């Protein structure tokens, strides 16, 4: 019998503020332990929190981008639990009345369809510190630099039905957070973390019991962890067992999830409104002020790219995954005047080379201006697309501009028909057998002749000219 997977994600995005959510300490990553933990962050007796305005603005920004209601009045609550990385014995979070209410985001499925994922809420909260388990005479060391860093927890509806959808949602949200400047989305530094609620059911049945998988901090892990968890749950049910509601931790080394019983011990968080903080009021004017500074959103950009540059939905959605890629593409498209060509190159060679080198577009060594120069050489038939890829590789390696490389390596395409004719005449003369076969109807051999001619011209023959002449001569 068939099983249906049900997935909801809770994503913690660290907000791009300079100071902490309730104190004036720096949020910069990587400082010496406890040098960015002030009296408030340490939960010293007598200290009080004061809310960071930028954190509120960034939350509104994300809320507007997912078409959510922004609460005119929202409340901070204390989530009470003891843990060494939680200095006050409670985390300041939001429970009732979060700052961002019901919203949604559309994701692109592999088959090209669009699916709408509901977003239940997004709330502001403070991050915890870090426990370092290296051996300090058998003890754990606590670094509270991260304590009080602002987070936006974005909670989805259980709308995803397989791991790929979950990854698509997470990627899209990740891109959105970066697009908007809401956060840097740095997953290695933990600025973008995901917990997945996973359950299985028979299609159409009630939701099954869910397990929460903690700390999925890469796109690769989330897919693997969910698939693993689904298998685990199906195995349990099919062998007559029952899934237990619990928190599980994904171990990427072993590719398995394991129960975190320690967290189950006391999960009565005793939420109540934080008496040290007052309700946050957000007026329509506040919302409009944030809206006025919003960049073009990915979906709007995608629609515009499709309309303005006649791109396919697929090309446009790839190009709008990040603001930097979109900007790069637009510069190239406008510079070379051929959007399709620009899209093919940005989604093709550029993306591929970035991925091979595990680099981000921000660090791309071939500037949009340099790429434009290269694409112009394709357009004016100086080089073929194929040769251009070699030129691009050389440009990536810092060997110079497109023109300089073409010149230096003698890659200029041969468009002189007499030179191409001479090459073809020689091939026809040297391969009488194949010529005869071709002429007797074996069309497939055309490719053989193209290949021979290209090889003879060291790839520099203009492919269109070569094709035309070859056809004439063979049929001649």
């Amino acid at each position: 019998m068939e099983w249906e997977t049900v997935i909801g994600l809770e994503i913690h995005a660290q907000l791009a503020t300079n100071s902490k959510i309730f104190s004036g300490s720096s949020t910069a990553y990587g400082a010496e332990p406890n040098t960015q933990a002030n009296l408030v962050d340490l939960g010293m007796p007598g200290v009080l929190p004061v809310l960071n305005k930028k954190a509120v603005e960034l939350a509104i920004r994300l809320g507007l981008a997912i078409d959510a209601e922004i609460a005119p009045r929202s409340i901070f609550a204390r989530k009470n639990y003891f843990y060494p990385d939680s200095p006050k014995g409670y985390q300041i979070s939001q429970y009732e009345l979060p700052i961002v209410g019901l919203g949604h985001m559309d994701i692109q499925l592999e088959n090209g369809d669009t699916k709408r994922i509901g977003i239940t809420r997004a709330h502001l909260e403070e991050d915890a510190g870090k426990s370092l388990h290296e051996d300090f005479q058998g003890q754990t060391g606590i670094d509270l630099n991260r304590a009080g860093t602002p987070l936006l927890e974005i909670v989805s509806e259980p709308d995803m039905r397989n791991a790929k959808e979950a990854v698509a949602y997470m990627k899209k949200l990740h891109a959105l957070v970066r697009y908007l400047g809401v956060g840097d989305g740095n997953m290695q530094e933990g600025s973008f973390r995901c917990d997945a609620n996973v359950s299985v059911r028979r299609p159409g049945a009630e939701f099954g019991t869910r397990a929460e998988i903690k700390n999925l901090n890469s796109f690769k892990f989330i897919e693997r962890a969910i698939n693993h968890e689904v298998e685990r749950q199906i195995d349990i049910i099919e062998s007559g067992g029952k899934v237990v509601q619990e928190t599980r931790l994904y171990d990427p080394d072993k590719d398995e999830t394991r129960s975190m019983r320690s967290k189950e011990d006391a999960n009565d968080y005793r939420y109540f409104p934080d008496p040290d903080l007052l309700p946050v009021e957000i007026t329509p004017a506040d919302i409009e002020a944030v809206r006025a500074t919003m960049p073009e959103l990915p979906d709007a950009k995608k629609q515009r790219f499709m309309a303005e540059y006649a791109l396919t939905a697929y090309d446009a959605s790839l190009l709008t995954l990040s603001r930097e890629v979109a900007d790069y593409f637009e510069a190239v498209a406008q510079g070379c005047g051929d959007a399709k060509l620009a899209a093919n190159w940005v989604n093709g060679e550029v993306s591929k080379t970035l991925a091979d080198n595990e680099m981000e577009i921000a660090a791309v060594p071939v500037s949009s201006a340099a790429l434009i120069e290269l694409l112009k050489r394709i357009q004016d038939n100086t080089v073929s697309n194929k040769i251009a890829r070699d030129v691009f590789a050389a440009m990536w390696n810092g060997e110079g501009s497109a023109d300089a490389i073409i010149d230096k390596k003698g890659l200029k395409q041969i468009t002189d028909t007499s030179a191409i004719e001479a090459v073809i005449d020689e091939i026809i003369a040297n391969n009488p057998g194949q010529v005869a076969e071709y002429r007797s109807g074996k069309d497939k051999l055309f490719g053989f002749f193209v290949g021979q001619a290209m090889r003879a011209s060291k790839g520099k023959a203009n492919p269109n000219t070569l094709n035309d002449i070859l056809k004439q001569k063979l049929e001649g």
Partner: protein
Amino acid sequence: MAISEAEVKKVARLARLAVPDDRLEAYTQNLSNILNLVDQLSAVDTTGVEPMAHPLDMMQRLREDVVTETSHREKYQSVAPEVEDGLYLVPKVLE
């Protein structure tokens, strides 16, 4: 309302207080007395009354996003029971 010894134990665990067994009865009695006092509230009709979390109807003031702090680690850690290499130490935490 009376609270049972088992409930007192549970609450003490939540609050991280190691109540010794020989004190449990006294605590249970005292807490029950307090709950009895508090139970008067259940008879009050509060239909439609908005809960009051703060004495004044004020809204939260917001702070500009400016880093105002420098490190005072040594001073702050001078009151700590146990530190090493700038870290606060606790018995090994198992996840």
